[in-house]
C-alpha cells in the first residue's frame, strides 16, 4: 500500500486530513461516483486515514460494472458471427455474460480484439474491408466523445464496415436514481472530475437544489480526494448544499464544447438498463437515426431472449451505497477477480475488485 509520505505533497495531505478530523462532529455518508476514485481511495489507504464518522460509499461510476448482462450477451453473439471482428477495451473481456465472457468466446474461436481506442477500430475496419468491425462502446461521458468521434471519423473516411455496439451511460440520472431509492442514506457526493472535464458542471446544479445535498467535483489523485472530502465535510457541517469544484485546474464550468457537440451529433438520450440497478429513465445514449448504419444493433438486428442477472451478486446494493463489498456472503469466496459473479469484481475500478486487491489495507480499517 501507499503511505501518506508518498503522496504528491505529504504535508498538504496531512493538513487536509487534520482539517477533516477537526471539522467532523457527527457521522456523514458520502458517495464517490467514479470508479477511478473508488480505486484510488482504497488503494491509497485513504479510507483508513479518515475519521470513523466519514463513511465513504462507492457509487455506480464504473462503466464495466453497469453494462447489463443482455448487452454482454449481444456482444458475444456478434463476436461469434463469422464475418465480424468484435473489439473493445481490455476491461470488457472478463465481464460475465449469461453463459460465458468475451475472453472465453475468443478462446473458442471468435475474433475478439482488445483495443486502446475506438479510433484504432476504425483503422482496423479500413485494413479489413471484407470484414465487419464492431466496437463494443461502453463508458460514461468521458468516453462518449471518443466513441462518437469513431463514428464521425468512419463517416469522413468512408469506412462503411464499421459500427458500434453502444452502451453509454450518464452520471446525473444515476445520481438521481440512487437518491430516489427510499433506503438511500447518502448526504453528499463527490462528482467525477473527468466526466465534468467533458460536460462541465451545469448539469449538477439542479441535483444540488432538488435534493439539498452538497456536491464537489473532484479529481482522482489522493490529494484531490482528500481536498474534495474536506470541502464536502465543511459544507455538511455548516448545513450548506452547494456545487463546488475541487478540480478547477482541469474542469471548466462550460466543459469541452467540441466534445459535447460530437456526442450530441452522434448520440441521443435514451432509457437504459444498468446492471444491478434496473432501468433508469434517460440515463443512456443511443446512436441517432442519421447514423444508424454505424449502429451495430440496427445493422445486425440482434434478437436475444432477455436474461436474468445472477441473484447471488449484490452489486446493485453496493452501487446504491446500501452495502459494502465485504457485506456480500460470496465476496472473496464464490466471487473473485478470476471467477467473478458480477462485474464489480472484474474491473480495477469496480468496488469489489478494489476491496479484494487491497484487502490488507482494509483489514487495518476493521482492526
Amino acid at each position: 500500500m501507499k503511505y501518506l509520505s508518498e503522496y504528491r505533497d505529504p504535508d498538504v495531505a496531512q493538513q487536509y486530513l487534520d482539517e477533516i478530523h477537526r471539522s467532523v462532529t457527527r457521522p456523514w455518508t458520502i458517495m464517490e461516483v467514479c470508479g477511478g476514485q473508488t480505486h484510488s481511495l482504497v488503494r491509497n489507504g485513504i479510507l483508513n486515514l479518515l475519521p470513523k464518522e466519514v463513511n465513504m460509499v462507492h457509487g455506480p461510476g464504473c462503466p464495466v460494472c453497469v453494462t447489463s448482462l443482455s448487452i454482454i450477451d449481444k456482444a458475444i453473439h456478434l463476436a461469434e458471427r463469422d464475418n465480424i471482428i468484435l473489439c473493445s477495451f481490455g476491461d470488457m473481456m472478463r465481464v460475465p455474460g449469461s453463459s460465458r465472457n468475451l475472453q472465453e468466446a475468443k478462446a473458442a474461436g471468435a475474433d475478439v480484439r482488445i483495443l486502446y481506442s475506438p479510433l484504432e477500430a476504425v483503422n482496423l475496419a479500413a485494413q479489413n474491408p471484407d470484414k465487419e468491425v464492431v466496437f463494443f462502446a461502453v463508458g460514461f461521458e468521458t468516453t462518449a466523445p471518443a466513441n462518437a468521434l469513431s463514428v464521425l471519423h468512419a463517416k469522413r473516411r468512408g469506412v462503411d464496415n464499421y459500427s458500434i455496439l453502444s452502451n453509454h451511460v450518464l452520471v446525473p440520472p444515476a445520481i438521481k436514481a440512487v437518491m430516489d431509492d427510499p433506503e438511500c442514506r447518502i448526504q453528499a457526493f463527490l462528482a467525477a472530475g473527468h466526466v465534468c472535464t467533458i460536460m462541465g458542471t451545469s448539469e449538477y446544479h439542479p441535483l444540488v437544489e432538488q435534493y439539498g445535498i452538497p456536491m464537489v467535483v473532484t479529481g482522482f489523485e489522493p490529494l484531490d480526494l482528500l481536498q474534495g472530502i474536506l470541502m464536502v465535510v465543511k459544507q455538511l457541517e455548516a448545513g450548506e448544499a452547494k456545487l463546488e469544484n475541487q478540480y478547477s485546474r482541469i474542469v471548466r464550468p462550460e466543459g469541452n464544447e467540441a466534445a459535447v457537440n460530437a456526442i450530441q451529433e452522434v448520440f441521443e438520450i435514451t432509457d437504459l438498463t444498468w446492471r444491478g440497478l434496473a432501468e433508469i429513465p434517460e440515463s443512456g445514449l443511443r446512436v441517432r437515426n442519421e447514423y444508424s448504419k454505424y449502429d451495430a444493433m440496427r445493422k445486425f438486428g440482434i434478437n436475444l431472449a432477455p436474461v436474468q442477472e445472477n441473484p447471488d451478486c449484490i452489486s446493485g446494493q453496493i452501487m446504491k451505497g446500501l452495502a459494502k463489498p465485504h457485506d456480500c456472503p460470496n465476496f472473496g469466496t464464490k466471487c473473485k477477480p478470476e471467477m467473478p459473479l458480477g462485474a464489480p469484481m472484474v474491473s480495477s475500478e469496480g468496488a469489489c475488485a478494489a476491496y479484494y486487491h487491497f484487502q490488507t489495507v482494509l483489514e487495518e480499517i476493521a482492526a
Partner: protein
Amino acid sequence: MCLAIPGKIKSIRHEYDGQIKMAKISFGGILKDATLDMVPQAEVGDYVLVHVGVAISVVDEEEAKQVFKYLEEIGETDELTESDYVPGQVERGEIRNLLKDE
C-alpha cells in the same frame, strides 16, 4: 479505463482534407495516435490529457508529469500498451522516424 492520461504532442497531421486532426503523442516514451479534434488549439510540444485516443484538455507540463507519474505507479498506464491493433505500414514508418528524433 475511465481516466485520462497526459502526454506530449510530438507531431500533428491533418487527414482527409483537414477533416481529422491527428497527433503522435508520447506517453513517457510510448507513442500513440490520438485525435486533437476536441482541442483544436493544441500545438506540437503541448501536453494534453488523452482518454482512449482522444485529447480532451490541454494541461501544463508540471501537472502532466505529476499525473503521469501517479498513473504509472498505480498501473493505469497499462492500457497504452494493451492493444491487439497493429498499425499499417505508413504509421509504422512514422513511429520509427519519431523514435529517431528522440
